[in-house]
């Protein structure tokens, strides 16, 4: 076995010590990590840039669309108000009280033997008013003028009842008169009368009964 002399051992030891120098190793490690950080930073920077561009575009879009949306909202409110006004006007026109049919019924119900001297009526004023009153005065002439006046009341009651939901009528006055009239060559006694008709022109708005109250009334009915 040949003898081997390492005359460079001191140089090699120093080289090894230099390689194992913690400061050197640490510097290399920090450099590697720094490069990793820099790469990661650039990746993040690119992502942030893309997001920033998107945000900027969205922001631009918003600043363009926002005034238009505000104007659109204002216009929508304006149009809604106009539509509501139009609807209210249609409702108002439709809910008017029409007099011509009432006068027509009066005309048809009164016979030749009765002369009306006064008619007055007021339309229901306001949405919450459900009924109206018609006052009619006249002179009836017949062999039995009171019966004739009653016939007029019934006829008018029936005719108005065919048009309106609920009609009530009462005599305010019914008096025999000492005057006589001649009708178709016959001398007839007369009576003066005043009638009052209560007409329900609108249905009452039925409020929803509370559930508890409804249940209670049901229970009491059962009892």
């Amino acid at each position, binding site marked *: 076995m040949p003898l081997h002399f390492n005359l460079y051992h001191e140089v090699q030891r120093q080289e090894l010590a230099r390689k194992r120098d913690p400061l050197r190793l*640490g510097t290399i490690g920090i450099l590697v990590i720094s490069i990793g950080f820099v790469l990661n930073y650039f990746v993040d920077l690119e992502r942030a840039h893309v997001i920033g561009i998107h945000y900027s575009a969205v922001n631009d879009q918003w600043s363009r669309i926002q005034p238009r949306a505000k104007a659109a909202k204002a216009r929508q409110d304006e149009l809604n108000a106009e539509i509501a006004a139009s609807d209210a006007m249609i409702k108002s026109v439709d809910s008017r009280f029409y007099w011509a049919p009432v006068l027509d019924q009066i005309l048809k119900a009164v016979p030749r033997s009765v002369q009306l001297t006064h008619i007055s009526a007021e339309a229901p004023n306001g949405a919450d008013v459900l009924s109206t009153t018609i006052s009619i005065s006249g002179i009836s002439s017949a062999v039995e003028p009171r019966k004739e006046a009653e016939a007029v009341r019934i006829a008018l009651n029936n005719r108005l009842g065919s048009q309106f939901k609920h009609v009530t009528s009462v005599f305010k006055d019914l008096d025999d008169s000492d005057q006589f009239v001649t009708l178709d060559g016959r001398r007839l006694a007369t009576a003066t009368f005043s009638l009052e008709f209560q007409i329900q022109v609108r249905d009452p708005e039925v409020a929803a009964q509370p559930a508890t109250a409804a249940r209670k009334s049901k229970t009491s009915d059962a009892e």
Partner: protein
Amino acid sequence: MKLEQDQIKKIGIAAGAFLALLYVYFAFLLGPLQEDEHKSVTGIATLEPEIANAKAQIARTADLELKAPAATAFLERLRNTIPDGAPIAWFPPKMAAFFKSRGIEKSTTHMVSESDDAMPGFRKIVWSIDLPKVEFIPLGLAISTLENNEPLLNILSVTVDAIREDAQYQHATLVLSTLVKS
């Protein structure tokens, strides 16, 4: 392996440098970048629904704009039927002409009251129309025509009295309201 005093010092320096690097990287580089990114993401998340709502609002208004003319045509038509000018100047002559056209020669119209109507843009005026000599049937027909031709007009009360001297005729008084432009 036993570390020498010098090596321990170097390791300490290397560790300190590494910590400094970490601090600088996260505090001054990555931190602000991520903060900006977070702001942008939050901004996008906030604005995108707002933009969608705004677009929907614009679409709704456009749709309403198409439908509105039909919905408001009635009101517009009625508004156009109201003459311009003071109602006291045009309404009584209009009524006189109307009743004359229906064979009722004499009529007098007086203003009773004037008030703002619940309908925006309109005023309500109450009138009294006196018809001193009228027959019942022409009166009924005139009222019928008036009610049908004048939707803004509402007859509030009707009074008919027989004329003692002439049984053929009656004396009628109509109280009516009409809407005029305010």
